[in-house]
């Protein structure tokens, strides 16, 4: 009985094993195909991962992550990322002056087409905390300047130390002056005569930012007061070239980003500018103090800007004597200026292109003789009002063609109107 049961079980099992062992050629081929397809799928997935790693980088891609999910605590891959960064910007400016001044007399100005500036940015990131950044500029096709060159050392993720040739952190244009960034063929007058853009000196400082604010505070070799003029502070820039460093100044800035696109801020500078010069046996101080309030709003096609700046100069009588200036040619004791500017992108609603066409208007006033020293006279020619009507056409975000008509008026009716065109780029 037992033997019969065993036989009845063993025989079918053996039969099944025999049948399964004897495969048809079709079954063998199907199994081989399945193996090859699985192998191909693994290879394709491996290639996809390799492409992802090449695209995003080793540091981002989790090399040990599995296909079916992530471990709860994948270890961070620390790796130094470094490299050379190159950029640049430039602009060519054509200026066409009116033949007559505001009072009808001959302007005497010659039209000009200038390869105003071509710039090469180069930077090198040594690691996540340490980098070098620089701007080398060719002005008027033949003058070469180092416009800034500094080392940044990040003390924390939000605070860093900066040393080298620094851009004075004042106003809206001094640090950000690539042509596609601002409206107008020329920089605002206040940011030329009161804040002497592009103002750079050698120094060291700290910078930082939070989600809503950014700030910078530097100490830099001061301006050279012996180079000031009745037209403002611009001549006092030493540009880092064997700069006299008998006097240092403090430059500081604070910006508040009220909402993305709206920036409100203030900046200041103070420092003696005598640079060791003596008059009648005593050192000339010549302290310059500059204040600025500024606003920038760019959202929903609007481009609005406003800035107010004021500068005071101490010991003006001594500086005037030092330079040999007299009468209405003296340096102003107080200077001030402001501008308001508004533009709107007419192509804002055109979604299939990145190009923009922005008509704009700017109204500005600057006076480098708001007050003068006792014994000197203020010149009304230094009280300048300008209204500019123009456009900026950007076929791409980083390229701009600008044109404007500037109407200049002075207190002595010596203003000269002009038409300007600019082609500018940034990369």
């Amino acid at each position: 009985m037992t033997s019969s049961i065993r036989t009845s079980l063993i025989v079918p099992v053996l039969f099944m094993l025999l049948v399964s062992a004897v495969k048809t050629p079709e079954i063998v081929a199907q199994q081989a195909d399945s193996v090859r397809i699985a192998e191909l799928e693994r290879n394709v997935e491996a290639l996809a991962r390799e492409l992802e790693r090449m695209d995003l980088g080793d540091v981002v891609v989790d090399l040990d992550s599995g296909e079916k999910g992530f471990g709860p605590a994948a270890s961070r891959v620390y790796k130094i990322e470094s490299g050379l960064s190159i950029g640049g910007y430039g602009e060519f400016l054509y200026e066409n002056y009116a033949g007559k001044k505001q009072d009808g007399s001959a302007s005497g100005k010659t039209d000009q087409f200038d390869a105003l500036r071509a710039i090469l940015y180069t930077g090198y990131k040594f690691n996540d905390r340490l980098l070098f950044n620089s701007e080398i500029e060719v002005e008027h096709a033949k003058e070469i300047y180092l416009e800034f060159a500094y080392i940044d050392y990040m003390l924390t993720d939000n605070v860093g130390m900066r040393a080298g040739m620094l851009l004075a952190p004042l106003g809206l244009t001094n640090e950000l002056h690539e042509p596609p960034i601002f409206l107008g063929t020329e920089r605002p007058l206040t940011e030329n005569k009161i804040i002497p853009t592009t103002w750079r000196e050698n120094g060291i400082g700290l910078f930082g930012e939070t989600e809503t604010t950014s700030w910078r505070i530097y100490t830099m070799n001061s301006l050279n007061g012996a180079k000031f003029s009745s037209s403002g502070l611009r001549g006092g820039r030493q540009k880092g070239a064997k700069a006299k460093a008998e006097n240092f100044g403090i430059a500081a800035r604070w910006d508040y980003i009220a909402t993305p696109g709206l920036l409100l801020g203030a900046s200041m500078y103070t420092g003696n500018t005598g640079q060791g010069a003596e008059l009648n046996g005593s050192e000339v101080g010549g302290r310059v103090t500059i204040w600025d309030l500024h606003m920038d709003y760019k959202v929903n096609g609007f481009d609005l800007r406003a800035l107010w700046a004021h500068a005071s100069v101490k010991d003006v009588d001594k500086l005037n004597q030092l330079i040999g200036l007299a009468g209405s040619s003296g340096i102003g004791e107080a200077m001030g200026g402001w501008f308001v500017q508004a533009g709107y992108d007419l192509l804002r609603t055109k979604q299939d292109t990145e190009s923009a066409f922005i008509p704009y208007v700017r109204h500005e006033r600057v006076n480098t003789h708001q007050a003068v020293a006792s014994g000197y006279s203020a010149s009304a020619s230094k009280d300048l009002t300008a209204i500019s009507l123009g456009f900026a056409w950007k076929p791409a975000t980083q390229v701009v063609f600008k044109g404007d008509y500037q109407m200049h008026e002075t207190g002595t009716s010596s203003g000269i109107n002009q038409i300007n065109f600019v082609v500018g780029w940034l990369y």
Partner: protein
Amino acid sequence: MALLIFQRAFFCVAVSILTATQFLSAQTLTITEGVQLAFPGSIVERKTFFLNDEQKEEARRLAGENIPIDNNLVIPYIAHTDGNPVGIAYFDAHRVRTLQEVIMVAVDTEDRVIRIETMRFQEPPNYRAPGRWMAQFEDRKLDRDLSQKGDIATITGATLTARAVTAAVRRVMALHAVIDPL
């Protein structure tokens, strides 16, 4: 005299910060860290999609603004909670000025952006987009306002970054629409 005292104090503060500061972590995030920021505690499924020419063309059309889309491969990371999909994370690498940036764009199951995160940024840190600016993209779908011509403001001092990130978000959202990973 006051200036001299101020300058000395300035240097003292700078040196003190320099010596006292503890270095914080590196600024690069991994995919795992990024996905867990967007979908905490989720289980993540990685998928691979290969695009044909028609799909790429459709993605370009949806992205608009001449945004380049050369991807042949799209890799969504689908987050699951309790077995149900809760969102998808995509990673986009692009150039800012000369060097690369990688961002994560996290999308919910209703095709809305829920988080943007900078994963890696190789340009100088002052060009990096702040988190508050990135928050502009949250709760937005791919439409005409998801653009610097629309509601997305630029970043003062970091125009190229603002443009690169905005283009990347539009590119990701267009690819998301084309592959429909869920």
